[in-house]
């Protein structure tokens, strides 16, 4: 519910405050490996992106890592070495993700070994995707058009445990929530028979909408929640003291390695 409190602050801030860029002493830290790897039950190739942290005031936000050895293996003893495609992106060739399998990522870089594993959990289907009229907004030509919001409903299969999910929303094939701050994750802990909510994006007539829902493990969910906390952090006055998101990668590396089962549903917004 912190999001609602945040809105409250935003309102009060906007009334009384102003913002400025400030120069602070950031010190220096040893470069750390950052991993962003994903394997799904959809078709490959799957990607693992590697980079390193950099000084706060550097013009680049990270340093790409191109000289690592990256291997993904499953719990049946199959393994595959990923190929560096440039710019710190490593790709699989033949690997196909499957539900119920635990995948392990091994990275050898700069004389250090890193390891992470993630289980590809099953996912329920989105059984309803609908759109509701939200409001009239001005389009780029200045005329008023109807904006719609998309709501999905998916049944929850609670097997005595909490399930974790992430969502991706596409408009006409373009990912709407592509930045880290737009990541949508939830658990079904406080939901009853169905999990459902409305996405915060306006859609217009003739837009094609595709919603992808993915299973994630609790570890991965905690990582994304932690990532959101860092992005939203105010330095510890009203939020918690800032901390790096809890990574599932060993040996002090940052980032996350996730395995997900993906389901999707699509529709086109029609003239009423």
């Amino acid at each position, binding site marked *: 519910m912190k999001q609602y409190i945040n809105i409250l602050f935003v309102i009060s801030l906007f009334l009384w405050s102003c913002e400025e860029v*400030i120069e602070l002493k950031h010190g220096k830290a040893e470069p750390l490996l950052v991993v962003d790897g994903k394997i799904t039950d959809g078709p490959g190739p799957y990607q693992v992106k590697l980079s390193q942290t950099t000084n706060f005031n550097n013009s680049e936000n990270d340093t790409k890592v191109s000289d690592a050895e990256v291997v993904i293996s499953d719990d049946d003893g199959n393994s595959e070495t990923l190929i560096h495609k440039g710019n710190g992106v490593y790709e699989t060739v033949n690997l196909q993700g499957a539900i119920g399998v635990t995948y392990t990522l091994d990275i050898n870089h700069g004389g250090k070994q890193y390891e992470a594993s993630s289980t590809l959990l099953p996912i329920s289907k989105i059984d309803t995707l609908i759109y509701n009229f939200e409001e009239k907004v001005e389009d780029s030509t200045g005329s008023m058009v109807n904006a719609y919001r998309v709501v999905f409903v998916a049944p929850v299969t609670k097997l005595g445990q909490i399930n974790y999910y992430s969502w991706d929303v596409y408009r006409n094939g373009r990912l709407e929530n592509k930045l880290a701050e737009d990541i949508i994750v939830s658990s079904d802990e406080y939901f009853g028979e169905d999990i459902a909510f409305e996405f915060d994006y306006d859609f217009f007539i003739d837009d094609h909408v595709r919603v992808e829902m993915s299973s994630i493990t609790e570890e991965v969910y905690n990582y994304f929640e932690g990532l959101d906390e860092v992005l939203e952090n105010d330095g510890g006055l009203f939020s918690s003291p800032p901390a790096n998101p809890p990574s599932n990668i060993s040996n002090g590396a940052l980032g996350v390695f996730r395995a997900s089962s993906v389901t999707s549903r699509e529709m086109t917004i029609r003239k009423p």
Partner: protein
Amino acid sequence: MKFTRLGLCLLLFFTAFMTAMGQSQRKNNFTISGYVKDRASGEDIIGATIYIEELKTGVATNVYGFYSITVPAGDYHLQYSFVGYKTRSMEIALDKDQSINIQLQEAVVEMEEIVISSERPEQNVTEVKMSTEKLSVEKIKTIPAMFGEVDIIRSMQLLPGVQSAGEGTTGLFVRGGAADQTLIQMDEATVYNPSHFLGFFSVFNPDAIKEVELYKGGIPARFGGRISSIMDIRMKEGNSKKFAASGGIGLISSRLTLEGPIVKDKSSFIVSGRRTYADVFSAFAKDTSARKNILYFYDLNMKLNYRFSDKDKLFVSGYFGRDKFKFEDDFGLSWGNKTGTVRWNHLFNNRLFLNTTLLFSDFDYNFDINDDVLSFDWTSNLREFSGKLDFTYFLNPNHQLEFGYKAGYFQFSPATIKPVGEKSVIDAFKIDKKYALEHGIFLSSQSKFSEKLSVEYGIRYSLFQNIGPATVLIYGDEQNRREDNIIDSVKYSKGDIYKTYGGLEPRIGARFMLNRSSSIKASYNRTRQYLQIASNSTAGLPIDRWVPSDKYIKPQISDQIAAGYFRNFKDNTYEFSVETYYKWMQNQIDFKDQADILLNSTIETELLSGKGWSYGVELLLKKNVGKTTGWIGYTWSKTRRQIDGINGGKAYRPRYDRPHDISVVVNHEVSPRVSVSANWVYATGSAVSIPKGKYAFQGQPISYYDPLDRNGDRMPAYHRMDLSITLKQKKKLFGRGQGEWNLSVYNAYMKKNPWIIDYRNVINGDPKIDPEDNVTVDTEEFKSVTTYLLKIIPSVSYNFKF
């Protein structure tokens, strides 16, 4: 309740013992006792001194305005005095017990010369009490205020040893303690959340308050329940002489107070209300949709008292306040406190005074979210019912005893969530209620060993019990509690006591007079705390969750030693003090990174505990009388916490560790009609973590923090000056009333004090540009962005009284 019975037995024993002792001494001694009151309003005066010249001895009135002094028969000159009041002298021939009720008249500045006599109050030097700051509301009202809203908590933050978490927060961080380690009580009822509007204002309407006392150390044995400090707020009783009305119209709120006698000199009432203008904040909004928002708060204070006889007085007081917030039709949040006090003062005889109190406190908040399939209603509530007995026994002028017993019942309902509407997919959800009992029994004595040495020593025994119904989870490893490691649960039925904590809390203080105008003092106290706020942020929020000690959350314990030198100059015109303290705190709690607190029914899995310590030096130079009054305070302090699992187990600074803290508060009466005030504050920047690097993730730069350097950096230093001028109207309002204008400027030299700092992409060097704005992006860089709050706030208010 075995313990309750034990407590009562002990009390009866003390009572009998005192009465017996009193009688044995009675032969040649007689007692002078009574109440000291304000002549104009009939309000009791707390801490007025009664001095017998011939014996060079005296006593002070207790918190109910009562005094008693027993001395040998003889002819005496008595002096009744109190700061800001004219001293009254009288001669008596003491040959029997006498009851003397005295009314003191407030001194006006023009009469200053008469007021200053050789017997000026010098209590701060002579009393044993140290580490205590007392401010009258009259004094607080002269301090320039933000938006012109006189704020009691904000004024306390100007005193040495008291830190604030940042601009716009009401928490009091006293001598290295957290905000929830200060007990805030109004007419002895606990106020669990003293903030309005997310902390910009406090819940105390200045018009209803008589005075505030803050105990930073040397905490008397009669107080318990918090380890750091006690903020004791007393409400006005209401004018028992004549009907009076007062009020004010300000930028943010309006106030109205009505008071007067019900039966003259026997019974009086006061009703005081305050409300902010409906949605004044959102009305300023540039965005028209924001004008649909609702945002206001109000307070209502009431007090009635009835004097049955000189021996029996009854007080009933209450507070009710609420904040309401509604953001368009999407969500609403409201929260508020309720307190109630019923107090009966009874004099068994002229030396034994009993105060019996029944107390009620309630804090609740309510969320309602109207978001289609996610609509729900969320309520949370904390309730306390307490009762206590406090005896004061005036043995002889050199010896005074206080003893008593307090019992409290607590009920915690952290969260109940209900889906709203047919479409809602939210599951009804509830965190189990928790129940607890807390008891405290105390005895304290004030003894004067010689002209030079006075000692106050006391002991408190506190006991805390978790009671059923409850379900206690058992973890495989008690030290490393995880949700996936729950191996069993134990059910307890209603009334079962399933966990008990308790312990002694010794308190001792001594004063040694060096000469007539200077003294040294020292104190030690141990305090225990059984309730705390579970929060990993520093500033308080209305949704903060109070949790009781239980099987996994051990009570907090603090030991503090303090020593000080007190000296008055120039015939007590100036008061100077320097105090130093060291404090050890056990079982301090903090939370794991990314802790889930609000809706967690297994909060013990997120909690870590360890120790804390704090030390410092506080200097205070004060001028209480004359045309120019005020104080200069300086504090140097250091606070650390060390908790396994946080910061790699190394000691770290809490955010509110701010080594240097200066405040200057000045009020000057230019003429009887015009007075000006100024204050200036300086504090080292809050301890924070600044990113040590960055990395990219999903197309966005992310701050990297050193996990072994929590709060190792500092915000820029904070400083600010506020000014105000008060002009009394020459013309009487409607023939008899008095009106005054107050103009104030908050942050007069427009210091841009960083309130929060965040780290994000900034387009073209301007943090106000939104990525969705239609601008040409020349540069997009990851930068530190600071938010300044309240650059300069001029305000005007009008106050009146009839």
